[in-house]
């Protein structure tokens, strides 16, 4: 008997005023003692809902609508809350996605350990647990807001292991953390598991971490498990076309040739009745039977797959790929720079208590942005990337140094002249969900900058808006003009945000982590779009990212920032393939690698 047995488990969301959504649909799997299982899937596929169902933590309107979860011989699905209490934490514990919110903000970290011990009449040494995750025991006396994101997440891991559980469910434990911090946490987790031998269900959308950590990986799509096999085998021979697409979206930025795939389209609407294979509309190798047959999860290769083809994928019919295709990058850049940043310094004054501390966010940074060229700013959070973007867009003024747009000193612009400058420099924001006014249509969002900056009339603005939508690949445009943001998928929204940035015909585009909030399977698609726009329209792009793979794919030039200083810069290919500075190497080494599992 396996440690965790999930059988035919279904979870349905029943909101009061909307259609019911079958978020998890008859899912079954086992986790053995000491096994490390990855659950990979994109946002909305039901993986976190499944995790919460296993922990019996679902909140209304979600509820288990069928099937069972048996943990260590106890039927979790039907036990009363009081019967579950002894099981919770003592044998099955969890770490939530890294955020401020996983720890109670008004009591100390130590008190949250004591809570767990007291609830189970256990004795425990919180200080020793903290040392286990390489934290100072002094942290126990502090409050969650006094810790950094990485420290909080390590404290949460120590807390999860406090009662020596047999099973730990990790739900996106490193999402939102820096690559370097993520690396230390993952390494620690691996060591602890070797030492304590607990089983893990590791839920993540991040293929790299899942593949690196897990023995066995389950891939979830549209509420179902579509593939389940050992990680190593999945890497060499994925059984499901979706898995193949996901694997294709990942590449080692240091490889000689880099190409990433994407899976066009979006997952089906789970509030509707599903017929046939749920992936067929995005599937590059779909056959006629896919429309009528809903394939079962059947044994194939060393695991199982839910596919009409039964794991035998034809070579042809790869998902669509994006690989940078551009002239030799080492030659000196053509064209006059549009924006020149020279020796720029930005200080922030922070008053805390008695003292005023000056934080130098950007320290003597210089670079040029040239037409048709993409410059990537790479670094961890807090390295000054976003501050530089704000300086370039004129939102902030440099403490010293200059930002020049042609012969215009951006730092000295005020009022109307600054507004006029903004026409030339547009921004693509990180979060496409927050960047659009939820009460305004796409047409309105696009017409605004057209009318403000270009002075177009209403009719002309609508025509131009439609043109822009076509340019970012949303066609037929008429279909999108009257849509509200919530009716679009994340990828479509980001396209609208890009179209809006293009509206005033800018010469500079600042893209601040434009793909980090998007699903892995469509990231390359947006990168390709940005790449094409920059080249075709001769736009100078400042691409801000912490992700070296995307920098490699999109950028001509890479600038590596650390604590506001440039530590390394040069052509993308050279900086990433032959990094010289130790910090660049650290960033590269921190990226989870698929090859490590092999």
């Amino acid at each position, binding site marked *: 008997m396996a440690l965790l047995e999930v059988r035919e488990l279904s979870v349905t969301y029943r909101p009061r005023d909307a259609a019911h959504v079958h978020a998890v649909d008859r899912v079954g799997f086992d986790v053995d003692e000491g096994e490390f299982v990855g659950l990979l899937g994109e946002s909305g596929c039901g993986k976190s809902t499944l995790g919460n169902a296993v922990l019996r933590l679902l909140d209304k309107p979600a509820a288990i609508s069928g099937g069972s979860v048996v943990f260590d011989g106890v039927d979790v699905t039907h036990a009363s*809350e009081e019967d579950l209490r002894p099981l919770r934490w003592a044998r099955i514990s969890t770490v939530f996605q890294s955020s401020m919110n996983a720890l109670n*903000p008004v009591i100390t970290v130590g008190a949250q350990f004591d*809570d*767990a011990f007291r609830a189970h009449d256990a004795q425990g040494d919180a200080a020793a647990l903290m040392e286990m995750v390489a934290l100072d025991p002094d942290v126990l006396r502090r*409050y969650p807001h006094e810790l950094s994101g990485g420290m909080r997440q390590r404290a949460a891991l120590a807390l999860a292991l406090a009662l020596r559980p047999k099973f730990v469910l990790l739900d996106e434990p490193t999402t939102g953390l820096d690559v370097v911090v993520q690396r230390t946490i993952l390494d620690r987790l691996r060591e602890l598991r070797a030492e304590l031998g607990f089983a893990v269900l590791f839920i993540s959308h991040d293929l790299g971490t899942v593949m690196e950590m897990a023995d066995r990986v389950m891939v979830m799509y549209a509420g179902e498990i579509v593939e389940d096999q050992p990680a190593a085998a999945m890497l060499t021979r994925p059984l499901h076309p979706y898995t193949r697409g996901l694997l294709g979206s990942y590449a080692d930025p240091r490889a000689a040739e880099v190409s990433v795939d994407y899976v066009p389209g979006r997952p089906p609407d789970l509030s509707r009745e599903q017929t046939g294979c749920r992936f067929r509309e995005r599937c590059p190798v779909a056959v006629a039977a896919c429309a009528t047959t809903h394939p079962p999860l059947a044994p194939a290769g060393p695991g199982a797959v839910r596919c009409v083809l039964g794991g035998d994928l034809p070579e042809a019919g790869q998902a669509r790929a994006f690989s940078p295709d551009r002239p030799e990058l080492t030659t000196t850049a053509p064209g006059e720079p549009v924006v020149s940043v020279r020796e720029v310094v930005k200080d922030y004054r922070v008053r805390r*208590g008695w003292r005023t501390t000056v934080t130098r966010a950007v320290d003597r940074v210089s670079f040029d942005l040239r037409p048709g060229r993409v410059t990537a700013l790479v670094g961890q959070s807090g390295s000054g990337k976003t501050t530089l973007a704000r300086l370039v867009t004129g939102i902030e003024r440099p403490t010293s140094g200059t930002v020049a747009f042609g012969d215009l000193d951006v730092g000295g612009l005020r009022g109307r002249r600054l507004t006029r400058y903004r026409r030339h420099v547009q921004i693509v924001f990180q979060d496409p969900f927050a960047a659009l006014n939820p009460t305004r249509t796409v047409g309105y969002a696009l017409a605004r900058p057209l009318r403000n900056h270009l002075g177009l009339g209403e009719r002309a603005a609508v025509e131009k808006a439609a043109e822009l939508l076509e340019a970012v690949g949303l066609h037929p445009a008429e279909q999108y003009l009257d849509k509200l943001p919530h009716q679009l998928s994340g990828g479509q929204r980001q396209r609208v945000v890009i179209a809006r940035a293009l509206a005033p015909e800018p010469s500079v585009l600042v893209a601040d982590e434009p793909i980090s909030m998007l699903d892995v399977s469509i990231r390359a698609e947006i990168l390709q779009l940005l790449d094409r726009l920059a080249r075709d329209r001769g736009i100078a792009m400042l691409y801000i990212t912490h992700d070296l793979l995307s920098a490699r794919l999109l950028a001509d030039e890479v600038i590596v920032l650390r604590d506001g200083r440039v530590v390394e810069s040069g052509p993308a290919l050279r900086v990433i393939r032959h990094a010289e500075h130790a910090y660049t190497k650290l960033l590269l080494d921190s990226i989870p690698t698929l090859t490590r599992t092999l």
Partner: protein
Amino acid sequence: MRYFLRRAGFFAATLWAAVTLNFLIPRLQPGDPAEAIVARLSGRSQAIDPAQVAAVRTMLGAPDGTLLTQYVNYLGAVLRGEFGVSYTYFPYPVTHMIGQALWWTVILVGVTHVLSFAVGTLLGAWAAHRRNTRADSVITLGSTFVGTLPFFWLALMLIYLFAITLNWFPARGGYGPGSNPGWSWIFFSDAFQHSVLPALALLIVGPIGWIIGMRNNMVQTLGEDYARLARAKGLPQRRIALTYGARIAILPNVTGFAMALGGILGGTVLVESIFNYPGLGRMMLDSVTNRDYPLMQALFLFITIGVLLANFLADMLYGVLDPRVRREVAA
């Protein structure tokens, strides 16, 4: 310490602004108090004799000189705690009048405020703990329903039911004609009887805001990751509800409460008018209708100081309760 000083400096600046406004606003109002008094004394239709007006002015000690000298004199008087003589309750000084009304209000409104807060917060927490059950629906819907009823209507219904129909409690006033204010048992029991209906009216309406605020805050905190994690930790229900729900959800309510305490000094004009209760609220209303400037100004100042002090208290209290701002407070 710096935080404290900064808050204190802010407090002083606001206080000065309030005192100044308090000086200016009544002078910007149309009408002359002396003329008003003379007119009232002599019957409205007759012409007013300037000599009479001058005599009344002298008697009341009405202000002379430029606005600036008036202002300087005013500031000095405020500092010495001299607010002058009431025009309507001549020759009692304003402070005497306020001192009398104050206790009625502080006891009635103070007690009902504290009770409302306690009852409201507890009910709200209970509703959140039992969210989406019948108990929650009854509490939430019930308080929303009562909250939509006009207060004066509720008060009149209480008077109709308990004072007129059942004749259990007196309908108006602070004490009956048979007792005189003093330290006697008869007076206290009489005053208590008189306070029952206004207190009841306040207690029906008072907790509603706290119930709804607390319930909504707590439902939200109980949906946060830390509360889910507490469930995953297998903590007892009580501990989750108290430490991971109520303890966090109560914070905004505490601030609101501390600020509401400031409003006590202003009394509740409506309730005191309806029940003809001898508190600050009614006195304020009277002073405005009678253009009793000294009383009016002193009352407004009193209320302002009360609200400012309460705000100050709320800031300090929040620092103690919420560690997220404590660091700043302690620094």
